[in-house]
C-alpha cells in the first residue's frame, strides 16, 4: 500500500517545477535581467500551459481528438471580459472582480462544452476532430459578428451592426462586433497566471487519480469493456470534455484581461490556435500532464529564442516539429533508437566483458 505516496511525489514534482520557475523568474525580474519581450510572454505562457493541460484532459485522458479548444477559450475570454467591463465601476476591488470573472468564464465555457459535447461526443477520431473544429469556428465567427449593448432598458443583442442595437442615449456598446470588447481592466499578471496554472494542474491531476478519472481513462482504453462493467460512458465523456472546456475558459479570461481589449480574431481564437495547443499536447506526450506543460513552455519560447534568425525562425520551427515527430514516433526510428540506446550499449559492453 505504499503506492499513493508515489503518485503524490510525481504531482509534487510538477507543482514544484511551476513554483521554482516562478520564483526564479521573479528573482531575475527583480535584478532587471529579463527583457521586456520575455516579460510580455509570461502571462501568455501561463495561458498556453493551462490550454495544453486542459486539452490533454480531452485528448490524452479521454482519448478523443478535439480541434475546437480555442473556441472554448474564446467563450471564456468574452464572458469574463463582459462581466469585468460591466462591473468595473460596481466592484472596485479588482481581485474579487477578477475572481468572479474567472468563475463566469469557466462556467460559460464549461456549459458550452457540455451543450456541444452532448451531440458531438458520439463521433470518434477524425470525425470528432472536424466537428469540434467546426464548432470552434462557429463560436469565433458568431462572437466576431456579435454586438451587445447595455442601456437603462436592459441588454440588447444584434448580429448585424451597432445601429441595430437601438440603444438609448445612456446606452453603452459592450461587445462591438469585430472590434470585440475594448476597455477591459488589465487584471491578469504573472502571479495570477501561475496560481491559475497550479489550480489547473491540481484539478486535472487529482481528477485523473480519482474514481471519475479512472472511469474516463477506461473509456479511452476500451470503450466496449467500459460499458460492459457498467460505466456510464456518455456521462464521463461529457464530464471530461466540459471540465476541459471550462479550464480553456479560464485561460480565455486570463487572455482577455492581459491586454485592455479582446477581439474574436482568427489569430487569437481560430482553428490554428486549437491546432497549436494540440501540438503542445502531442509533443509533450499524449496523456502526460507535466509533458504538456513543458512542451507548451518550450514551444512558445522556441520561436522567441530563434528570433536572431529572424525570417527563418518559423521555418525552423516547422522543421523541428516534423523531425521531432519522426524521431519520437516513427516505428523504424524507435527500433533503431532501441538498438542504439545507452542502456543497450552498456548491456553489450557488459556482455563482452563476460566473454
Amino acid at each position, binding site marked *: 500500500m505504499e503506492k499513493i505516496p508515489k503518485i503524490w511525489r510525481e504531482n509534487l514534482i510538477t507543482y514544484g517545477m511551476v513554483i521554482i520557475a516562478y520564483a526564479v523568474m521573479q528573482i531575475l525580474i527583480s535584478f532587471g535581467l529579463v527583457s521586456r519581450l520575455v516579460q510580455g510572454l509570461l502571462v501568455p505562457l501561463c495561458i498556453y500551459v493551462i490550454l495544453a493541460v486542459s486539452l490533454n484532459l480531452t485528448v490524452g485522458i479521454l482519448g478523443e481528438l478535439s480541434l475546437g479548444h480555442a473556441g472554448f477559450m474564446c467563450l471564456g475570454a468574452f464572458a469574463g471580459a463582459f462581466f469585468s467591463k460591466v462591473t468595473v465601476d460596481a466592484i472596485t476591488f479588482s481581485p474579487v472582480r477578477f475572481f468572479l470573472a474567472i468563475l463566469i468564464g469557466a462556467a460559460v465555457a464549461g456549459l458550452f462544452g457540455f451543450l456541444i459535447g452532448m451531440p458531438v461526443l458520439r463521433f470518434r477520431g477524425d470525425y470528432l476532430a472536424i466537428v469540434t473544429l467546426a*464548432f470552434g469556428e462557429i463560436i469565433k465567427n458568431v462572437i466576431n459578428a456579435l454586438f451587445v449593448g447595455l442601456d437603462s432598458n436592459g441588454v440588447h443583442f444584434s448580429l448585424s451592426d451597432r445601429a441595430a442595437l437601438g440603444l438609448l442615449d445612456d446606452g453603452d456598446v459592450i461587445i462591438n462586433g469585430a472590434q470585440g470588447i475594448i476597455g477591459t481592466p488589465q487584471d491578469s499578471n504573472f502571479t495570477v497566471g501561475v496560481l491559475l496554472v497550479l489550480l489547473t494542474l491540481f484539478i486535472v491531476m487529482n481528477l485523473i487519480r480519482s474514481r471519475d478519472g479512472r472511469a474516463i481513462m477506461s473509456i479511452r482504453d476500451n470503450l466496449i469493456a467500459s460499458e460492459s462493467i457498467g460505466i456510464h460512458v456518455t456521462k464521463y465523456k461529457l464530464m471530461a470534455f466540459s471540465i476541459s472546456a471550462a479550464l480553456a475558459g479560464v485561460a480565455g479570461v486570463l487572455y482577455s484581461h492581459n491586454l485592455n481589449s479582446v477581439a474574436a480574431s482568427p489569430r487569437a481564437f481560430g482553428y490554428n490556435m486549437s491546432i497549436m495547443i494540440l501540438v503542445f499536447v502531442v509533443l509533450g506526450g499524449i496523456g502526460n500532464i507535466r509533458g504538456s506543460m513543458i512542451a507548451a513552455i518550450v514551444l512558445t519560447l522556441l520561436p522567441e529564442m530563434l528570433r536572431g534568425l529572424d525570417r527563418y525562425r518559423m521555418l525552423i520551427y516547422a522543421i523541428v516539429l*516534423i523531425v521531432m515527430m519522426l524521431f519520437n514516433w516513427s516505428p523504424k526510428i524507435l527500433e533503431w533508437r532501441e538498438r542504439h540506446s545507452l542502456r543497450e550499449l552498456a548491456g553489450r559492453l557488459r556482455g563482452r566483458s563476460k566473454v
Partner: protein
Amino acid sequence: MSFINYVINGLSLGSIYAIIALGYTMVYGIARMLNFAHGDVIMVGAFTVFFGVSMQGLNPIAAVFVSIAICITLGVTIEFIAYRPLRGAASSLVVLITAIGVSYFLQNLALLIFGANTKSFTSMVPINPVRLAGGEIVISGETIMTILSCIIIMISLTAFIKKTKPGQAMLAVSEDKGAAQLMGINVNGTISLTFAIGSGLAAIAGILLCSAYPSLSPYTGSMPGIKAFIAAVFGGIGSIPGALIGGILLGVIEILGRAYISSQLADVIVFMVLIIVLLVKPTGLLGRKLQEKV
C-alpha cells in the same frame, strides 16, 4: 435574376471545393489521415503559376503544367519523407501533427520567398464571360472553366478507378492494406500514386481558385483546404461522388448564405450544415457504416 447569379457563383466555388475534396477523400481513404498540408499544396500550385507567369513571363499554359508537375512532386515527396515513416505509429494523432508541421513548413517557405503581402493573381482563363437573359445573368469565363474542369476530372477519375489496374489497386489498398499486400499489390507505390493525383488536383484547384478570387498569400490554401475536407466528410469520406456532391453543396450554401443572410456568418452556416448532416447521418451523405467487432 441575382439569385441565379448567386447559384452559378456557388456552383463555381463548389466545383473548386469538389476538386480539392476529391484529392482529400482519396488520400484519406487510402492513408486514413487528415492531411492538413493538402490546402497548402493548393497555395504552392497557385504561387508556381504566379511566379512563372507574372515574374518570369512564362506562357500561361506551360505554367499550369509546370505547376501541376511541381505539386505532384511535392505531394509524393511529403508522403515519402514525412508520412511514410509514421505508418504503423502508435497513435493516429502523430501523423496529423506531422501534417500540421508540413503545413507550417510550406506556409513559411512561401512567406520567406514571396513575403506576406497579398499578390494579385492574373486569371489563367482565356474565356470571355457569357451573358444570358439580356445581360442579367453573367457567367464568367472562370466559372465555365471551373465547372468544366470539375466535370472532366470527375469522369476521368471515376473511369481511372473503375477501369484501370492502378485504380483497382487504390480501392484494394483503401479497403485493407494487409490483404492488398498479400495480393501482390505494391502498397507504397499505390499510396504514392494517390498522393500524386491528389496533389495534381490541388494544383488545378489552386489555379482555378486564384483565377476566380484573384488574391494570393501564403495562407490562401488553408481555409479552402479545411472547407474541402468538410465537403469530403459531408459527402461521405472515401466516396468520390460524395466529394463532388459535398463540394458543390458547400459552395452553393456558402455563396447563398453570404448573399442572403450575412457575409460574416457565411462560414457559420457552412459549419452548421456540416454538423447537422453528420448528426442525422454520421457517415456523411454517401458514406458507409463501419462497426467495431466485439
